[in-house]
């Protein structure tokens, strides 16, 4: 059976978290009720194999639905999220409740926010940490109205070694003129704005000559070309920049301090978003796998149990990161590495035990997670986690150097 035709997995209504406070238990009931009333029952079927226009429409509608319930940007400060006032800078929703929210969205197999991701996480955290009041007022409300963002960091010669990027931004009066090429810009075709790193001082050491810009994607000279990826879709894009003029007002942080701004905001996706992904791996992923696996085969059962243990450990690590417990300097890398490779192992195993029929799932539902149940596509797609955002090899070096204090690789002269 094509997994896309399967009924949405029913959430375990009997499941209640014994560690819930009375307040969390109340909130959990509220979210469950909302999920039952608002998650489109048949979205996995209706969103299978749809075209880009329908995908964008569905994503924007789902974002608006979540936002009207107060569930789209629970991590934003209340001042910007539009909720009741909280203590300065506190998120509009408590971390404990965000935890519950993501557990329940995963348990009810809600569609994922794909298009809005960069906007509500990277762009928002960049604006909140380093933006001017004017920049925040211009963009944060617009993001809530559906403004789509893309990240323009990587280049053909600057992947894992991001600091060697070559795109240049030359100051001319009140503006910068940008030339170069960006790669792996996910969702660039639909983006309204771009978080752009470009070199403003070619003579400075490589990390000290980079600036961070907000770039309007409709500016003349911006040319987006989709790249077909390993699973056959084209959300990764190249962005060609030919004499693109960016007003100096759109510089974020100080000129030549772009690397520091990027470092401060790049980790924005690593806390709560990782918890959300871990919950999805547990619910949409593991539960779906158990429902279809030949569990009476002791070898299969043993492997499944090992996955359940590993997923439980991952959820524990993510929860600890979001709850802000005193952590290690490499926690973000540990979580990213472990999630990526666990996703790869799990989807690999799912393909292995699903037989040739797994290969007949030629599409996966758009807006689903990384474990849609179209296991072969999920498996091939798992490299989208182990390569971008700091490949696994880079993460291991970070863990060893920052987490364990091992000496750096001697630099090449």
């Amino acid at each position, binding site marked *: 059976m094509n997994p896309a035709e399967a009924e949405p997995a029913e959430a375990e209504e009997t499941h209640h978290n014994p560690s819930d406070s009375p307040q969390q238990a109340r909130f959990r009931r509220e979210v469950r009720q909302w999920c039952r009333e608002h998650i489109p029952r048949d979205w996995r079927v209706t969103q299978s194999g749809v075209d880009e226009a329908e995908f964008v429409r569905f994503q924007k509608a789902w974002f608006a639905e979540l936002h009207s319930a107060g569930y789209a940007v629970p991590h934003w400060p209340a001042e910007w999220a539009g909720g009741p006032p909280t203590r300065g800078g506190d998120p509009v929703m408590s971390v404990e409740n965000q935890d519950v929210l993501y557990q329940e969205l995963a348990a009810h197999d809600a569609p994922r926010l794909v298009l809005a991701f960069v906007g509500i996480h990277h762009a928002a955290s960049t604006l909140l940490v380093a933006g001017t009041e004017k920049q925040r007022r211009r963009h944060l409300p617009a993001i809530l109205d559906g403004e789509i963002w893309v990240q323009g960091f990587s280049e053909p010669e600057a992947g894992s070694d991001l600091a060697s990027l070559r795109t240049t931004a030359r100051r001319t009066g009140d503006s910068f003129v940008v030339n170069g090429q960006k790669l792996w810009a996910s969702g660039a075709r639909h983006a309204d704005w771009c978080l752009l790193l470009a070199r403003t001082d070619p003579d400075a050491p490589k990390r000290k000559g980079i600036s961070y810009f907000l770039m309007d994607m409709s500016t003349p000279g911006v040319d987006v070309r989709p790249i077909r990826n390993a699973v056959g879709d084209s959300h990764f894009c190249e962005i060609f920049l030919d004499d693109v003029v960016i007003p100096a007002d759109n510089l974020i942080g100080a000129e030549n301090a772009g690397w520091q701004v990027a470092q401060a905001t790049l980790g924005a996706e690593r806390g709560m978003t990782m918890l959300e992904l871990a919950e999805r791996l547990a619910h949409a992923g593991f539960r779906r796998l158990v429902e279809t696996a030949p569990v009476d085969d002791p070898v299969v059962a043993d492997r499944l149990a090992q996955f359940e*243990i590993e997923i439980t450990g991952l959820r524990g690590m993510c929860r600890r990161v979001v709850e802000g417990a005193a952590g290690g300097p490499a926690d973000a890398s540990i979580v990213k590495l*472990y999630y990526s490779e666990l996703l790869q192992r799990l989807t690999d195993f799912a393909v292995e035990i699903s037989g040739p029929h797994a290969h007949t799932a030629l599409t996966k539902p758009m807006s689903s997670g990384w474990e849609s149940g179209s296991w072969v596509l999920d498996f091939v797609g798992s490299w989208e986690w182990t390569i971008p955002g700091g490949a696994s090899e880079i993460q*291991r070096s970070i863990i060893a150097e920052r987490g364990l204090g*091992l000496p750096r690789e001697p630099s090449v002269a």
Partner: protein
Amino acid sequence: MADDFTEFHDELRAVAGDLLAKDREPGWQELVDAGWVGLEVPEGLGGAGASFAETAILLDQIGRAAGATGYLGNGVLTVGALAAAGPDSEALLGQVARGEQRMAVVFGEFALDGSRLSGHAEFVPDAVGADHLLVLIGSATGAGLAVVPSGELTVAAQPVLDETRRLATVTADSAPVATVLGFADDRAAAVLLDRAAVAIACDSLGIAERMLTATVDYVRVRHQFGRPIGSFQAVKHACADMLVDIEVSRRLVADAVALVAAGGDTEIAAAMAKAHATSTAVAVAGKAMQLHGGIGYTWESGIHAFLKRAALNRSLFGSPAAHRKKLAKRYSTR
């Protein structure tokens, strides 16, 4: 939540670490005097009134030191077993906490005929030298503990390759039983086994932490090809993998410890912690031996002691495969 205890826990950890650094093989009296045996015994009975959360800290430190102590059998399991027996065992708990009675817990195949006990068990921790043994029995009226003077039993040391644990075989041949203590809860025997599994998991976590620290310290100073070997990616990435697996174990063990301490349903969390932490400790100790190179393979380096203890821990109170089987039973009912 745990923050209120952080300072107390740090102090407990430091004191235990110091004690084990001075003497890796503290005797029974030393454990009593240090307050370890009575840690979980109510204050009214002469104990410290702490919980398994504190016991877990000591177990972790003992694992780090590969300490040869009777703490598991004479402390952790004895106190857990007596506590499960309710008010009837209070006098005994007090005697144990004060060091007047040394006991060990026996899981095995035993049958009670009137007031006579027969049966056999292997790999019983810390039974040699105990005054009384607490033998788990099941009877028509419910499970409980037969309290038997060790002189009425045959208790024989059972040597294993790991020289840091003391195991024994226990044989009862129509042995007279002093008292039978009934368990208040019919899940008590299973909960006690979970306590044992989690205790071993804590010990293994300590072993893994110690082996990672030792390895990191070594690869930072050992030079080959003109640079510290820890600067080579093959070496540093192996260390990173050790840390990642330890972090996963740490979360699973913390969850299981919290449930044991709170008296919650420990079955699933204990199985996960035991399976993961004991497997990880073997892998980490093995990798530690590898990354220490030739030195690591010498008797002198002591790494072998941690590897053997980790391997024994993995086998005691249910192998990882047995624990995973327990988890997997839940899948087929779906």
